[in-house]
């Protein structure tokens, strides 16, 4: 690796990682332009250039930004609520076995129901609107955050608690001074996973009851027979999910630098 020209070779290798992706894109574009004689085929699978043009058009008239904002806002609010509820609940379930068992038992029955299956009922209860969307994302993320927090707090080594006790930390201070810092890496990972789940579930929730958002853009593409819009929406969604995950990953690394 330290051999002369190693940096160049490394950069080349980094770029060559995407060779297959680029070749496939080129084949898709060229094949579509030369082999496809029936233009109706392109209604089902638009060319990469068509998708890029659609992305540019959607970005220029600002509608992509509106959809992004709407979707991002829903994920943000739903995830925040999930953290505010899921982390304390998870900590309680892990720290007080009896209270935890009482709380956990009914939730255990609800948890296996896919969050998306709540969409029809939440529409009935909350009507179509932001609240209903956020409730679905909250459901999706809260269970993940809560389960992860429970595991993290349960995983705090008992020796750590015993050592703190012996060193004179009062019983009440154990939670804040020992359990919370020791569980933090696991909780941070759970929050990251929960937010990822919210991004995943978002589309399905938006398909069923939203008037703006990336899910709506994706669905519109099919309804208007402009699948290029669908591809743009999927790409934007993937980028948002990946960017959020990277950002949270960086935050997680920062918060748990001492591990």
């Amino acid at each position, binding site marked *: 690796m330290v051999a002369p020209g190693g940096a160049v070779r490394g950069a080349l*290798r980094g770029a*060559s*990682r*995407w*060779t*297959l*992706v680029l070749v*496939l894109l080129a084949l898709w574009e060229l094949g579509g332009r030369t082999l496809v004689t029936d233009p109706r085929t392109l209604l*089902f*699978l638009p060319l990469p250039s068509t998708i890029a043009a659609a992305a540019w058009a959607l970005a220029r008239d600002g509608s992509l930004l509106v959809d992004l904002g709407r979707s991002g806002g829903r994920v943000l609010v739903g995830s925040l609520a999930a953290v505010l509820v899921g982390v304390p609940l998870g900590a309680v379930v892990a720290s007080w*076995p*009896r*209270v935890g*068992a*009482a*709380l*956990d*038992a*009914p939730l255990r*029955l*609800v*948890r*296996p*129901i*896919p*969050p*998306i*299956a*709540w*969409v*029809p*009922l939440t*529409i*009935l*209860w909350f009507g179509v609107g932001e609240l209903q969307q956020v409730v679905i994302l909250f459901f999706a993320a809260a269970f993940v955050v809560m389960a992860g927090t429970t595991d993290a707090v349960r995983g705090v080594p008992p020796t750590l608690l015993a050592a703190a006790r012996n060193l004179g930390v009062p019983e009440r201070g154990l939670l804040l001074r020992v359990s919370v810092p020791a569980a933090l890496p696991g909780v941070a990972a759970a929050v990251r996973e929960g937010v990822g789940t919210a*991004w*995943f*579930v*978002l*589309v*399905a929730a938006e*398909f*069923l009851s939203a008037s703006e958002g990336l*899910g709506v853009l*994706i*669905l519109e*593409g*099919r309804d208007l027979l402009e*699948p290029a819009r*669908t*591809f743009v*929406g*999927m*790409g934007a*969604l*993937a*980028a948002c*999910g*990946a960017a959020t995950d990277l950002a949270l990953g960086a935050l997680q690394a920062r918060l748990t630098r001492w591990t």
Partner: protein
Amino acid sequence: MAVPGRRRALSPRALPAALGLLVALAIWAVAASRWPPHVLPGPLVVLETIVTQRSELVGHALRTTRRVLLGYGAAVVIGLPLAMALGARPVLDRQVGALLTLLRSIPPFAWTPLILLWVGVGDGSAAAVVFAGAFFPIVRNARAGIDAVPPSLVLAARNLGAGPRVYWLDVVLPGAAPMVFTGLRLGWALAWMSVVAAELVGADGGLGQLILDARNLARPDLAIAGMVAIGALAAGSERGFALVERRVLRWRA
């Protein structure tokens, strides 16, 4: 958890758990009595619906299960060999790995409109969405599992002249098995989420469709019955999964 203390450790939790369930049911029942049944039906109403509509529920559940099995089966049959190929060939690993990383970021449900456009409404489209959900966790974890095989074992096998059969079946596969199972389990959970999303957006029959129809008919009791059925199927099958996993991986303990 120590085995001798197990019975004693279980009982102090069983009582609060039962109490928690009762309280939750009571809260549900009280809430239901304050709202009309077409908004929030009580637990007994839902139970009655489950009993009276059982044949319909079972029919929809079978359709949903078939779609899950179709899509999941395809994801396993394609995903595991692909992971092995990626583990065996670094060039493939880098190139296909990059492609998979891109595709993986797309939520599986987002494929639903395209799949409906390409395949049309039916078992095939729902199974395709299930495939999109289950495929990536299966490949990713199996691939990571191959990396998790201790290099000393790999080198030892090579030095002792293991052929490809012995190498894959006796060294890599057992070593990767825990991660492979993790992927299979994650994929299974996502498969159930995906099938509901697919059925809600467009499918004929299936529990997702039942839930949606129930709302349109202002029958939340039927919707809850459908949700209970999905939850029971998903949780029950996951329990089965865990049993198989423990069996297969018993040699590790």
